[in-house]
C-alpha cells in the first residue's frame, strides 16, 4: 500500500495495520481490521462512522485503555513520535498518557469525580506528571481554566462538578487534558451530550486551542457535520475498516465510496428542503454477523461481481485521497 510522503519529523501518530478483536464465547470477532492512519503535528484528523464501526475502540487502543474490556490488540503497530506504543512497558506508557497524549470523552459528568472540587482535580492532573508545589499547580490550574474560556475562573475553581453546566464541565475536562501540554489530543464524541449552541462553543474552543498550541487533534464523532466543520482530514469508517480517507474539502467535493455518499445523503440538513432523504437500505451490521468481501456490499446499490467475495484494497485517487471500493463513484461532473 502506498501512503503519502509526510515529513518524518512532523509525524505524530502512525497506526499501521491495527487489528482489534473482541473475545466472545463464540471465539474472537474482529472489531477493527487492518487500520492504517497517521496524524501530523498541527493537524486535525476526524474519524466518522456509525455505531459499531470501531472508531471509539481505535482511540481506546491508542490510549492503552482496552484493559478491562474484552477487546484485544491482535496485530499492528501504533507509532507515537517514532515509538511503538504497543511495545512499551506499562510504566513507559503511563508516562506518555495524560502528558504527551491525552483524551476527552463524551460524558463530562461521569468523567469528573463528583466529590472533589474541580480545581483539586485539575491540580491532581497537573502534579501527576510534573512535580510542583500545590500553589504553583493551582496557578497553572487557573491558567488552564482561563485557556478553556471558563467565565470567572478564580470563582469557579472551587466549584464541585454538579455546580457547573454541561458545557462548563466539558471545558474543565479539556483543561485537565491540557494539563500536560499534550502533543496529541484525542476527543471521542466530545460534544455529543451537549446542546447545539454549546457544541458550537466547544468545537470552536478545540479548534482555537489546536491552533494556539500546535497539537495534533484526533476528533471522533458520528456527526459528519461536526467532523466537516472542524477537521483537516477525514477518515470514514464502516464495520472496523477505513473505507475512505481524504482531506476535508477533497472528500466532500469528490467522494468515491458509496458509503460516504450514503452517509452524506442521509442527513437532513437545515439549509435545504428535500422531499425524501435517500437513506441507505438495510441496517448497520452487528459484530457477530459474518460478511464476506466488502462489509458494505449488502447495503450498497453499486455492488457487483466480486463485492461479496473480495475485500477491496485501499486505492489512491489522489495523493491524499484513498477509498476501499471495487466500483468507486465517478467524480462529480
Amino acid at each position, binding site marked *: 500500500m502506498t501512503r503519502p510522503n509526510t515529513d518524518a519529523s512532523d509525524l505524530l501518530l502512525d497506526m499501521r495495520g491495527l487489528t482489534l478483536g473482541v473475545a466472545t464465547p463464540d471465539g474472537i470477532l474482529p472489531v477493527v481490521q487492518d487500520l492504517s492512519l497517521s496524524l501530523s503535528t498541527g493537524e486535525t484528523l476526524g474519524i466518522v462512522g*456509525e*455505531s459499531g464501526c470501531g472508531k471509539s475502540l481505535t482511540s481506546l487502543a491508542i490510549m492503552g485503555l482496552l484493559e478491562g474490556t474484552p477487546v484485544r490488540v491482535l496485530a499492528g503497530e501504533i507509532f507515537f513520535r517514532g515509538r511503538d506504543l504497543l511495545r512499551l512497558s506499562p510504566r513507559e506508557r503511563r508516562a506518555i498518557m495524560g502528558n504527551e497524549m491525552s483524551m476527552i470523552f463524551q460524558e463530562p459528568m461521569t468523567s469528573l469525580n463528583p466529590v472533589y472540587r474541580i480545581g483539586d482535580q485539575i491540580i491532581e492532573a497537573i502534579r501527576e506528571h510534573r512535580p510542583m508545589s500545590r500553589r504553583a499547580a493551582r496557578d497553572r490550574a487557573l491558567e488552564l481554566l482561563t485557556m478553556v*474560556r471558563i*467565565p470567572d475562573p478564580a470563582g469557579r475553581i472551587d466549584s464541585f462538578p454538579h455546580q457547573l*453546566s*454541561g*458545557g*462548563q464541565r466539558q471545558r474543565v475536562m479539556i483543561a485537565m487534558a491540557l494539563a500536560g501540554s499534550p502533543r496529541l489530543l484525542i476527543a471521542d464524541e466530545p460534544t455529543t451530550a451537549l*446542546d*447545539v*449552541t*454549546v*457544541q*458550537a*462553543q466547544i*468545537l*470552536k474552543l478545540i479548534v482555537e486551542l489546536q491552533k494556539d498550541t500546535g497539537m495534533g487533534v484526533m476528533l471522533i464523532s*458520528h*456527526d*459528519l*457535520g*461536526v467532523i*466537516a*466543520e*472542524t477537521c483537516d482530514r477525514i477518515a470514514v469508517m464502516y464495520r472496523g475498516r477505513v473505507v475512505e480517507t481524504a482531506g476535508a*474539502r477533497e472528500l*466532500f467535493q469528490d467522494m468515491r465510496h458509496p458509503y460516504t455518499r*450514503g*452517509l*452524506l*445523503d*442521509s*442527513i*437532513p*440538513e*437545515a*439549509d435545504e*428542503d*428535500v422531499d*425524501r*432523504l*435517500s*437513506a*441507505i*437500505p438495510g*441496517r*448497520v451490521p*452487528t459484530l457477530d454477523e459474518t460478511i464476506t468481501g466488502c462489509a458494505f456490499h449488502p*447495503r450498497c446499490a453499486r455492488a457487483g461481481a466480486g463485492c461479496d467475495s473480495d475485500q477491496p484494497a485501499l486505492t489512491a485517487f489522489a495523493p491524499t485521497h484513498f477509498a476501499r471500493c471495487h466500483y468507486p463513484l465517478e467524480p462529480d461532473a
Partner: protein
Amino acid sequence: MTDAAPLLQVRDLKTHFTFRAPSTGVLPGPKRVLKAVDGVSFDLAEGEVLGIVGESGCGKSTVGRTLTKLEPATSGEALFRGRDILGLSAGAFRPLRREIQMIFQDPFASLNPRLTIEQTLAEPVRIHGLARTREEVRARISDTLVKVGLDPKVMTRYPHEFSGGQRQRIGIARVMIVEPRLVIADEAVSALDVSIQAQVLNLIKDLQRDSGISMLFISHDLGVVRHISDRVAVMYLGRIVETAPKAAIFEKPAHPYTRLLLASIPRIRPGRQPVVDLGEPASAASPPSGCAFHPRCPLATDICRSTRPDPVDLGNGRSSACHHAGQLLGEAA
C-alpha cells in the same frame, strides 16, 4: 393548512414540578417550583406537522408528555376537537388515547423486553376493542407490520432480537395500529444511526401523508425538524419564542435565539461562519427576569431585562416573542 377548526388548540399550558431544594441543615429544604412548561399556546390543524425544537431543558418533551397525560398539567387548556383533555380523569381520557398516540425516543427502552412483538402490538388492539377474534387481531398486526416495513413473521420474536431501527419501526407500528388522529413524536429518531434515521424519517413522513394524521414532532435536531415539519415552534426555557412556517423560520428567523440555534449547527458544506456566544441556557428553576434569553442576546436592551415579551403576530402565520423582532426581520429583508 385548512380553514376548518384546528384539531388541537393548546392555550397557555403550564406544567410545573415542585421539588425540595437541597437542605442546608436538619430541616428539609424549601419547596421550589420548576416551570418546565410555562405558558405555551399553539394550534395544530388536521393533517399538519408542527415541529417543536429547542435545547435540553426547554420543556419541549414535557409539552408532549402533558398532552398525553403522562404528566399532570398545572393550568391551561388543550382542546382536542374542541374538548378540553387536561381536565379529564384517567378513565374518561382512556378512549381518547386511541386517537392521541406517542412515539418515544429510545427504541431500546420503549418496548417491554418480556413481551413478544405480537403481545406488544395486540395490547392496544384489545384495549380499544379494534378486533374481536384472535385471527382478526393477528391480521391487523400483520397489516401494520407490513406498513412499517417489517416482515409479519417477526411477531413471534422478542425485542432484543431487533436492531434499533427495527425496534423503532415496531414502536411506530404500536402507534399506527390504532389509527390515531394525533401523534406526538418525542425525539423519535434521535437515538438512531444516521443511515437508519433517514429510513425511519422517510417512513414517518410517508405514514403521516398517507393517513393524514396530525403530528407534533419534538426534536432538538433542526435538520430533522425542517425535513418533516410544515410549521415550526422554537422553545426556550418553558416558552415558545417563535412560531412560523418552516421556510420562513429557517430562512428569516424572527427571534435572536432561533438565529443562534441555526448558526450553531455544524455545516457539512462550508459557507456560514458559525456565530458563537459563551452562554448556556439558564435553569428553568431560576429563569432570568424579563426575556429569559436576554443574558445571551446580542440585541438585549433595558426593556428585555425588565419586561417579558409576549408572542407578537407578524403576519403570514408567524409570531415571535421578542421586543426586537421587527428589527430582526428588517435586517434580513
